[in-house]
Structures are given as C-alpha cells and as structure tokens.
C-alpha cells in the first residue's frame, strides 16, 4: 500500500506546476498505477482492427503489465481477455498473432473460446471413473479477466472496469473530432517495431504532451523549418486533462525567432537536405495540417507527421523501463505513390526517426538525472498553471493535464 503520510510522497504545495520525481521511481506507486489506472476506469489501446480483420484471428499485447489476447470471433465480434490460464496461470497464447478456432493452454490443455471463456478442462471427469475433478469443483472462478472492448475508427480499445464510461465519452468532445480527422478510411498496416525506453512510462507520456519541446529538442524539425513554434498551430486538452492533441499547419515559416534567440535548433544557411522528396506532403486530409500528435490516457499516441500515420502504444515494463510499440499504417485504398511516400516518411519516425529518435534519449536523461532527488520536482510553468486548450504551443498545459488526470486516478 502507498504510505501517503510519508513526506516524500506528498504533492508539492505549488500543485499543478510541480511534479515530484518520486512519481517516476517509486515501486509502490508503480504497483498502484497498475491497479488504479491500467486496470481501473480507463480505456487502453489494444491493436488496430486491421490486425485482426479476419474471423478467428488474434493478436497478443499488454495492458499495463497484464498480458492480453485480443480476438475476433467467428461471428466477427471483438474480444480481449487476460492471457492467463485459469488453472495454473500459464500464458494461454504464446504467439504474437495468428488464427485459432479456440485457445488451448499448452501446460494442461485447458481450452478457451475467443471471449476467454473456459470451454474444457482436460480429463475433468478423469478416466474410467478414476482421477479428475470433483463434480462441484469450480475452476471457472479463476478464469482470465475479460475486457469490455470497443472499436473506434479502426482502433481497438479495452477496459477492465465496468464503471468506465463508453469509449466515446471517455475520449470526450475536445479530442474525438481530432481522432476522427485522421482515421477517415479503413486502415492498412505497413509494419511495426518496438523502441525500448530506459525510463518510466509517464516520462514518455509527458514528453508527448509537451508541445514546448518539439522544436527545441528535435532540431531536425527546426533546421528544415518543418515545425517551429512560430507556425500556426494549437493544442486541445480534454476537460479532465487526460487526453491532448496538438497540431501544426503546413505553411512554411519564414521567421527568424530561433536565430534571434541564438538557439541550438536555429537554422544554419549551410544545412539543407540534398534529397527533399522525403518531406513532400500531400494534403490528403484536406485541412492543411502537417503534424498532429494526439494522446489518450493512459498510454496511447496517434501521430500524423506529414503523410506518416502511426499508433504508438506505451507499455510499462517496470519503474524505469518502457516499451513503445509502433504500428505504422496507411489507408486500404492508398495507391503506389502514397505508399511510397509513407515509407519514405517512415524515416522521420521510430527509433531511427529524424524527428523522434531523441525522445528516447531525453526521457532517459530525466530518469538518470533525478536518480538522487525523489523529493525534488520538475517545473511546469510554461503557459501558467491552468489546464486547457489554446492557440500557443509555448505552453505545458497538456503536461499539467496529464498530472491532473493521474493524480485524480491515484488519489494523490
């Protein structure tokens, strides 16, 4: 249990503008998060519908630390259940993906349907009247937990909480239109990979929500004038602070605010791409937005970076380790030229991405930097102390939103 009387775990008096570093370090906090957040009244991203397009197909994934099987049954309905056999707790399904008529635990061959219901217990009645379970045995009491599952515009989410609102209500009216804006057609998976981050999962989430860092840390953006804070853009934050969306318009920035301030990310005249085809964007969504980053609490990110589209799933693997599961996609009706464009722009993202490789390093630097100072706190005062939407990205409003939501779930 969390010891809330301990001074080290009390929230700083400044409130929303401070985040104490123990939130990234404390084993008890981490365990509480699993229970209160990942198994609590939140919706977690599970996969793309396109990954389980066919009846009886499945993928395995995680919700927090919990291993999960996500399926489509023979009738086409989506399900998700804990990947843990009712008998001795072994993984029921060990493949990453595939098709199956039913799921059999390899350990003792107990079988499950696509919803995770226990179907059969091997030798339940014994053989020839000998062995087996008593007639009143109830192995079903230890059945794997089943999720409420909802699909939305090709994304599949699940929650273990009967009291969570519907997925649409959970996302809310500020962010839902920004999700729909990108996911306008059936999706096609282009591939995926995993980036292992040497830091707490929340450091990645507050990096994603930090609209202030993008053009300062990611120098590639600024050098090539892809994203500067002087370009038109803005940020949306859900009422509870949990979810956010930031966007930048396509107009090339001609200003020199970065050069005047002598910033590291300012442009040197000598530095130009020789081959700029990679950056050529087709305005496929028709609204002139070149970059949109959207996050849903606790661990989902949807990006549109030019014509690169991806789902990023944040999977905590301990206090100081996080896996980022990237799935890049296009639309099912993409022509050859659009697929080629998306693959060229894959260079911008992922572990080797021109504009995303630094995130893993920067968040790891925080984890290492704060090692000896759990009682200190980060300063989150850009844009004041409020949580809300606005037209400036020189703000940490969405970061404050993350902590507002987190504290509410954690009762801290």
């Amino acid at each position, binding site marked *: 249990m969390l010891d809330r009387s301990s001074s080290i775990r009390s929230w700083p008096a400044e409130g929303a503008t401070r985040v104490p570093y123990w939130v990234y370090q404390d084993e008890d906090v981490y365990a509480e998060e699993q229970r209160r957040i990942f198994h609590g009244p939140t919706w977690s991203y599970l996969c793309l519908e396109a990954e389980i397009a066919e009846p009886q197909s499945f993928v395995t994934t995680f919700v927090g630390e919990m291993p999960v099987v996500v399926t489509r049954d023979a009738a086409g309905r989506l399900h998700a259940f804990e990947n843990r056999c009712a008998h001795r707790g072994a993984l029921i399904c060990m493949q990453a993906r595939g098709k199956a008529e039913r799921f059999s635990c390899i350990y003792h061959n107990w079988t499950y349907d696509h919803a995770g219901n226990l179907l059969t217990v091997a030798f339940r009645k014994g053989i020839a009247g000998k062995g087996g379970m008593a007639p009143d045995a109830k192995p079903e009491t230890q059945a794997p937990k089943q999720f409420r599952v909802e699909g939305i515009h090709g994304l599949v989410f699940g929650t273990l909480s009967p009291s969570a609102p519907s997925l649409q209500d959970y996302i809310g009216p500020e962010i839902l239109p920004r999700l729909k804006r990108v996911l306008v057609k059936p999706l096609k998976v282009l591939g*995926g990979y995993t*980036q292992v981050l040497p830091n707490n999962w929340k450091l990645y989430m507050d990096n994603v929500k930090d609209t202030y860092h993008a053009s300062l840390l990611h*120098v590639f953006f600024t050098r090539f004038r892809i994203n500067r804070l002087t370009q038109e853009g803005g940020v949306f934050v859900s009422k509870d602070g949990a979810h956010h969306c930031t966007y930048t318009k396509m107009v090339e920035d001609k200003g020199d605010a970065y050069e005047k301030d002598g910033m590291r990310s300012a442009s040197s005249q000598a530095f130009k*791409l020789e081959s700029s085809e990679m950056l050529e964007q087709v305005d496929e969504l028709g609204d002139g937005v070149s970059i949109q980053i959207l996050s849903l609490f606790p661990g989902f990110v949807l990006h549109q970076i030019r014509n690169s589209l991806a789902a990023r799933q944040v999977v905590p693997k301990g206090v100081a380790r996080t896996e980022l599961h990237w799935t890049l996609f296009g639309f099912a009706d993409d022509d050859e030229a659009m697929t080629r464009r998306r693959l060229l722009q894959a260079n911008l993202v992922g572990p080797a991405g021109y504009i995303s490789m630094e995130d893993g390093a920067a968040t790891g630097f925080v984890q290492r930097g704060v090692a000896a100072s759990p009682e200190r706190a980060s300063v989150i005062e850009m844009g004041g102390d409020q949580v809300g939407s606005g037209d400036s990205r020189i703000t940490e409003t969405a970061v404050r939103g993350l902590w507002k939501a987190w504290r509410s779930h954690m009762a801290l």
Partner: protein
Amino acid sequence: MREIEALHARYAHALDDDRLEEWPNFFTERGIYRIATAENEARSLPLPVVYCEGRAMLRDRVQSLRHANIYEPQRYRHIVSSVLVEKVDEERVKSIANFLVVRIMENGETMLFATGRYVDRILLKEMLYEERVVICDSRRFDTLLAIPL
C-alpha cells in the same frame, strides 16, 4: 569471394571508426539502403526502420546525425561473418552475411545492440553496394538507432 568479404569489412570499419562521411561512398549513386526487421519481412510488410535511396539521401542521414540529431556519444563494433556469395549476372553478385553489432556507450556500458543479416546486391567492377538490406532479427531497438548498421 575475398573481395566481397573485404568490402563488408571496410564498410564495418568505416562505421565503427566514426568515418560516417565515407559511408555513402560504399553505395552506387542510386544505391539503396534499407533497415528492416525479420518480423516485417516475414509478414511481407514494407515498413523500413531506415530507408535511403541514392547517395544524396545517405549523405542527408550523415548530415543530420552530425548537425541535427541529439544522441548520447556511442560507438558500434560490427562482427560480420558467414558470408555467402551468389552470382546474379556478369556484373553483379548477391551476398548474404550475418552481422552482430555491439554498442558501446561513453561510460563503457556495452550491449548486444543488433543481430541479423545483410542481404546485398553488389556491382563487381565498382565493388559497391547497389542495394544493402539490413534485416534485424529482433523487432526491438534499445533507446534509439542513430549510427547506421
């Protein structure tokens, strides 16, 4: 055969010695460099981790690593082995080789960073890669992949 192995060795030493500016010159003018994962290849999914078409794009990678991207000082040690060479036509061969890349951080922390296969098409007269596909065995990359494999 020996020349092919020597080409792979020169390539590996150039990267391990931080002579990144020489890296594009191991490719033909329109040469292709692609880092993929075995998983995506097996699923016939086209997503690259890195994809460069031609020396200009390779030079852009180097420029960006030198002047734009921020990453902790690190080095690689490539071990390349089990080279197989197969004739494609009079001008080119196909080569498959295993690789293992160890990453060494400035503080000495050393890890097995990547393993996989180089699947190459090599022009014999110029002794350059017309295509080098780096197929990583794992879908997992630790922190970031800055220096090319």
